[in-house]
């Protein structure tokens, strides 16, 4: 069986040789036109008029469009229909598209776009959380509140109380391949869209609306993305829609890709947060009461902010039993890019808030934070079942065992002692160590999204064509799914052709998001394969007078009674016998239901777990810091492919640590994003990964009935990076008597400020 094998990514050789095709690599037909947006220069105001004569006169320009030129719907929102492709009467952030240039080349379009003169009467913008609260600028009518027990009374009754506040920065996705789309005209108004998107169906839907056609007229294809990270769940809509509108106008193929600066200025990022908390706890560190307020800047449009903010609330407990908790969530409207999905989807922010809370309690009591963590863990599976703040029983809890194992393999206790010894001897360089756990809920919280489809053909030579609704963004989904198909048919992997995601093959798909790609599409493909296998088995059973269940598909052979065929022979026989060798498969996640207004139900099919230990060193005179070592133990269930899963875990840790350390988004007083290129925005590079980086997978299968008992692995490991921030905090705490109160991202300057806070008498 090919599942569980550590096979390389199916396109690895294409990636490393440069032969893998991305949207911008596809040879385009002669006459293809190129698009660029003219952008708002003001963060907030009334759009009076635009003088675009110079744009129209610029070399190579074919047409320039503004909102009134759009033929049908002027909207690219994935949710509330509040995101015009081109601004109408108002602008809402610096970088908002206001006009569209169609030109003969990419550079001509970009240069021309700079020549527009846009007259805006500026009004007072809302930038900060404080601004937004003062102006009551928010989405939904008020804060959402989820609660369990009675936090207020429990706080009053608590032995000890503590309050604090944590700022958490946003994060640029920095996918290697920027946003891109290519649209080619078909006959009779049809469109063929090739898009770098995690959500082809959403692209199809928005394009169809924009060109006034039913969805059947629009076919969207995605072979692969050069990284998505959530940034291509909704942010690709604008490019595909712009291209489709331009194709409709000109009759020529149109392509649009954002230059990196434009990409960073236009598109949404991870939501930044401020989390305020009041904790009640006993002398042993048990958290008896917790009141948490989460404030997040959603940007100018709704996009996916409601489910993101919901997920932050749903991870405000992380792995801890909180009998009395109240979580209040404010979704604030600001004149900035519309914050969007980013790996973890709010979960990381909520979880970081809780890890900070536990860390603060431990510091107050002078206890090892790991001990306080363990004292507050949910009960293990098999013991009394405790519920999350949103009413879901935690039935599969393994963090106590997993953390104990990691503490042992990483030599946590001895290293913590060594760190203390080092810090006693070294006045300038201080070390820190932290072990943090991850419990991440798996399923879309919008329950109806938890479905997937697949289409599988077996050709008469025994080769297999595989298609499903998931998209490949480098994570290895296609390889995992191919392994599933190969295992179901008992054939070698090279019998399987993995094909581009295509709305004409599998319709009405969900985004490849919420870590659900393998879980949902793997099961759908399994269903399709099993349908075909059953048809073949029934035919052979009739021929050879045996039960269909006795027909065995293994190692490229098929045995039925005494007979033994190659898979190809069976395919040819089935074809001769007029048996359909094409089947669809469908899957919907069982056992989930959720009321997001009440904040009660079972939103998640299961939880994925993991933990990381990070050791850092801080230069207390400058705030500079390095990760010295990271040890990770992560739960991928019975892994479909341990090589790919370890890759996801390593990448997740590094991306999470980058979010919380060097990746700093800076807007100026006028609301302009100043960090819009790699020269100003620092993502971790290969050299920034820990020198010692031990990553292992937890040996245990998923208790839930998932594809081969595996677990989702896309988002959860990002939150392993939380240990890097708390290790920095631990190092700073060695500088003085006060709690370091370290905020994220922990840039050198921020760490130095924290050092001074720790030292101040």
């Amino acid at each position: 069986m090919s599942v569980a094998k550590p096979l390389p990514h199916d396109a690895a050789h294409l990636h490393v040789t440069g032969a893998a095709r991305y949207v911008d690599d596809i040879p385009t037909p002669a006459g293809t036109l190129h698009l660029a947006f003219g952008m708002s220069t003001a963060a907030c105001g009334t759009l009076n008029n635009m003088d675009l004569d110079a744009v129209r006169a610029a070399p190579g320009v074919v047409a320039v469009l503004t909102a009134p030129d759009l033929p049908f719907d002027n909207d690219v929102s994935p949710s509330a229909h509040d995101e015009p492709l081109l601004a109408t009467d108002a602008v809402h952030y610096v970088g908002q598209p206001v006009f569209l240039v169609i030109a003969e080349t990419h550079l001509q379009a970009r240069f021309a776009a700079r020549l527009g003169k846009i007259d805006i009467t500026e009004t007072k913008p809302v930038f900060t959380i404080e601004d937004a609260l003062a102006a009551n600028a928010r989405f939904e009518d008020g804060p959402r509140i989820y609660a369990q027990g009675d936090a207020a009374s429990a706080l009053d009754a608590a032995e000890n109380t503590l309050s604090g506040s944590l700022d958490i920065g946003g994060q640029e996705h920095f996918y290697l391949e920027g946003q891109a789309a290519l649209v080619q005209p078909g006959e009779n108004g049809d469109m063929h869209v090739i898009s770098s998107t995690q959500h082809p169906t959403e692209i199809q839907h928005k394009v169809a609306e924009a060109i006034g056609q039913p969805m059947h007229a629009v076919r969207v294809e995605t072979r692969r993305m050069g990284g998505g990270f959530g940034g291509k769940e909704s942010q690709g809509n604008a490019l595909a829609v712009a291209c489709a509108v331009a194709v409709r106008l000109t009759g020529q193929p149109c392509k649009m890709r954002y230059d990196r600066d434009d990409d960073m200025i236009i598109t949404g990022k991870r939501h930044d947060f401020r989390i305020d908390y009041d904790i009640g706890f006993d002398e042993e560190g048990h958290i008896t009461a917790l009141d948490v307020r989460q404030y997040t800047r959603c940007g100018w449009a709704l996009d996916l902010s409601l489910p993101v903010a919901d997920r932050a609330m749903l991870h405000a407990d992380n792995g801890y039993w909180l009998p009395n908790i109240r979580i209040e969530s404010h979704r604030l409207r600001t004149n900035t890019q519309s914050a969007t999905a980013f790996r973890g989807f709010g979960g990381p922010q909520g979880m970081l808030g809780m890890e900070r809370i536990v860390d603060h309690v431990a510091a107050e009591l002078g206890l090892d934070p790991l001990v306080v963590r363990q004292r507050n863990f949910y009960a293990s599976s098999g013991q009394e079942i405790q519920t999350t703040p949103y009413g879901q029983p935690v039935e599969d809890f393994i963090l106590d065992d997993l953390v104990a194992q990691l503490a042992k393999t990483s030599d946590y206790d001895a290293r913590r002692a060594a760190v203390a010894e080092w810090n006693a001897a070294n006045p300038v360089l201080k070390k820190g160590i932290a072990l943090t756990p991850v419990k991440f809920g798996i399923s879309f919280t919008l329950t109806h999204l938890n479905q997937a489809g697949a289409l599988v053909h077996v050709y008469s030579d025994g080769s297999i064509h595989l298609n499903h609704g998931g998209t490949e963004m480098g994570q290895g989904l296609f390889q995992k799914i191919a392994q599933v198909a190969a295992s179901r048919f008992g054939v070698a992997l090279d019998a399987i052709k993995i094909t581009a995601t295509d709305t004409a093959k599998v319709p009405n798909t969900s985004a490849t998001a919420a870590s659900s790609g393998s879980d949902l599409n793997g099961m759908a493909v399994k269903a399709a394969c099993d349908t075909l296998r059953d048809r073949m088995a029934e035919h052979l059973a009739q021929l050879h007078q045996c039960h269909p269940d006795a027909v065995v598909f293994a190692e490229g052979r098929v045995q039925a009674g005494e007979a033994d065929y190659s898979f190809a022979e069976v395919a040819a026989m089935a074809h001769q016998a007029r048996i359909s060798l094409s089947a669809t498969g469908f899957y919907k996640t069982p056992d989930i239901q959720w009321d997001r207004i009440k904040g009660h139900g079972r939103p998640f099919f299961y939880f994925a777990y993991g933990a990381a230990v990070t050791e850092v060193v801080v230069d207390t005179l400058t705030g500079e810091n390095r990760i010295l070592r990271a040890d990770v133990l992560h739960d991928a269930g019975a892994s479909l492919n341990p090589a790919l899963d370890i890759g996801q875990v390593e990448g997740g840790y590094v991306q999470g640590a980058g979010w919380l350390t060097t990746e700093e988004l800076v807007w100026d007083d006028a609301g302009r994003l100043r960090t819009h290129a790699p020269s100003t925005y620092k993502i971790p590079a290969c050299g920034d990964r820990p020198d010692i980086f031990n990553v292992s997978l937890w040996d245990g299968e998923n208790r839930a009935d998932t594809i081969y008992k595996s677990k989702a692995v896309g988002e959860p490991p990002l939150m392993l990076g939380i240990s890097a921030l708390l290790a920095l905090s631990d190092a700073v705490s060695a500088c003085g008597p006060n709690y370091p109160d370290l905020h994220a991202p922990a840039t050198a300057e921020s760490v130095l400020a924290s050092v001074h806070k720790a030292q101040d008498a």
Partner: protein
Amino acid sequence: MYNFDFEKPESVADAIAALQGEEAQALGGGQTLIPTLKQRLASPSTLVSLKGIAEMQGVCMGDDGSVCIGGATNHATVAAEAGAYPALADTAAHIGDPAVRNRGTIGGSLANNDPSACYPAAALGSGATIVTNARQIAADDYFQGMFTTALDEGEIITEVRFPVPEKANYQKFVQPASRFALVGVYVAKYADGVRVAITGASNDGVFRWAEAEAALSANFSASALDGLSLSGDDMISDLHGTGEYRAHLCAVMTKRAVAAA
């Protein structure tokens, strides 16, 4: 890019002649100028490359024992060949990235006088002499504020002469994304006193820290700097760091440079 004329003279005299033209601009390694042109922040009609001028290439020793570097010498060459002044060679070895070091020139860097560049600190910290086609300019007179120098129109740096100190060291705190100096401190101890030059920090570009120089001239040790600090008020405050943070780093990096010298 847009159209411009390109000239590559082989002598200083020819270069000066070529620079007499309207909107002619000297081109060193192009590590700043070419991106500037690409962004349309400058649009000279003629670029005059100085890289073909043999007499402006390479490192040699002057009669007075100074290390003399041709104005068109790239950083990698200085790193490899200025061994007689190890701190200078080491500074050159850590400028930018390999591409910058193999293209960028010392003359280009000093003529541009970027407030975050390394060479201005080395030149000012060493009390170097900037030799042009027309005259010799002391470093103290040469740097006149960020992106501003004593160079006249059409004047080019043909050579830079560095007196070799008894001890010297350059400490750079890099901005992690661009690897430019957030603060860089060059400390050099000469028989007649210590010089401390700081780049990256001030709104006025590279500057000498007089109090630190006085303290170190009396006692060349990091502890001599105890209690000395700079105000953040006139420091650069931007997305990479506040003025206060830069002022703090100036003191820390100066101590480190002294300790490492």
